[in-house]
């Protein structure tokens, strides 16, 4: 039977190990985990306030209108990169965004959900318009040339890649959602595994801040 002191010492070792491994997890090499506020973040997602990337975009919406972040000042913006011929994560992300709209109630008018296609070749404006409308009448989709799409993805550190499958192709892509505050500043990155409740909480936190 171990003595009390051994017991305490092993407990301490476990504690040290837990703290160390926790630190390792927090300091992983993911570029999105380098938030400035670390553990004190008020958000469920990753606080990237002050980040030197994800500053904005300039693309064309499904009505042919050029759009940039400035157009949505006063609203919280939730931005997601995806593609329509996607059976799994993209509709799941958009369904979750629709759930967030519902949870927000009247405040939903102050949230703009924007979907940026990483497959402009197949995602025509008509297809994007119909697809978004299936989830929520207010959702907007943006598209652009191959160059503009790449430039925007680079700005957000978003990875996307065409992968052949059968006679067709699919897209690998980063499945994160980006939140901008009412002043158009990048604030939060949310992961795909997070729930609608997490998303709603972070949107609410940003809506509570002055425009």
């Amino acid at each position, binding site marked *: 039977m171990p003595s009390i002191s051994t017991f305490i010492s092993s407990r301490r070792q476990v504690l040290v190990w837990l703290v160390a491994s926790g630190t390792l997890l927090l300091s992983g090499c*993911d570029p*999105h985990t380098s938030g400035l506020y670390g553990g004190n973040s008020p958000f469920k997602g990753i606080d990237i306030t002050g980040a030197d990337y994800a500053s904005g975009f300039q693309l064309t919406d499904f009505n042919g209108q050029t759009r940039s972040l400035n157009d949505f000042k006063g609203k919280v913006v939730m931005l997601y990169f995806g593609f*329509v*011929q*996607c*059976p*799994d*994560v993209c*509709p*799941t992300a*958009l*369904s979750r965004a*629709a759930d967030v709209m519902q949870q927000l109630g009247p405040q939903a008018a102050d949230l703009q959900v924007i979907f940026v296609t990483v497959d402009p070749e*197949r995602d*025509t404006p*008509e*297809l994007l318009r*119909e*697809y978004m409308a*299936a*989830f*929520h009448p207010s959702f907007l989709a943006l598209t652009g040339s191959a160059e503009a799409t790449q430039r925007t993805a680079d700005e957000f550190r978003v*990875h996307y890649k065409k*992968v052949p*499958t*059968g*006679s*067709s192709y*699919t897209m*690998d*892509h*980063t*499945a*994160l959602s980006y939140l901008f505050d009412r002043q158009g500043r990048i604030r939060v990155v949310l*992961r*795909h*595994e997070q729930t609608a409740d997490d998303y709603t909480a972070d949107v609410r936190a940003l809506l509570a801040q002055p425009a």
Partner: protein
Amino acid sequence: MKQLIIAGLLAVTATAWSQTTVKVEDAWVRGTVATQKATGAFMRLTPSVNARLVDAKSPVAGVVEIHEMVLEKDIMRMRQIPGLDLAAGRTMELKPGGYHVMLMDLKQALKGGEQVPITLVFEDDAKKRFTLDIKAPVTALGGGNAPMPMKPGMDHKH
């Protein structure tokens, strides 16, 4: 509700006729909009013996593949897999965030409430192939990640 019962009955009849049985439950297909060319079918499979899902076909799609979706460092990757191993008596769930039957080169838009016929092709341990015909109801695009119609009070979130 009615559709659920019918879908259930179909699964039961199909399994009763085949010697090696695979129970298919809660199959559903994600709806599409016009000119959308791909979507996924999801379901739960429970085989009576060890089996492998090796292929699938559907009259609504030119190409059907078995796919796996993985999230790696927040990047979604979707890949065709040669087959999906099923252990006797264990339920394998094809669901968003994991495996799905990928319907590509769609010949029509799939609207909520429609039924999509799918033939699932399995292989038993002796590499003998057997098929199972199912009809998977379409959950309208934007209708969530669950078979439709949902039973009142039934929680489909896991």
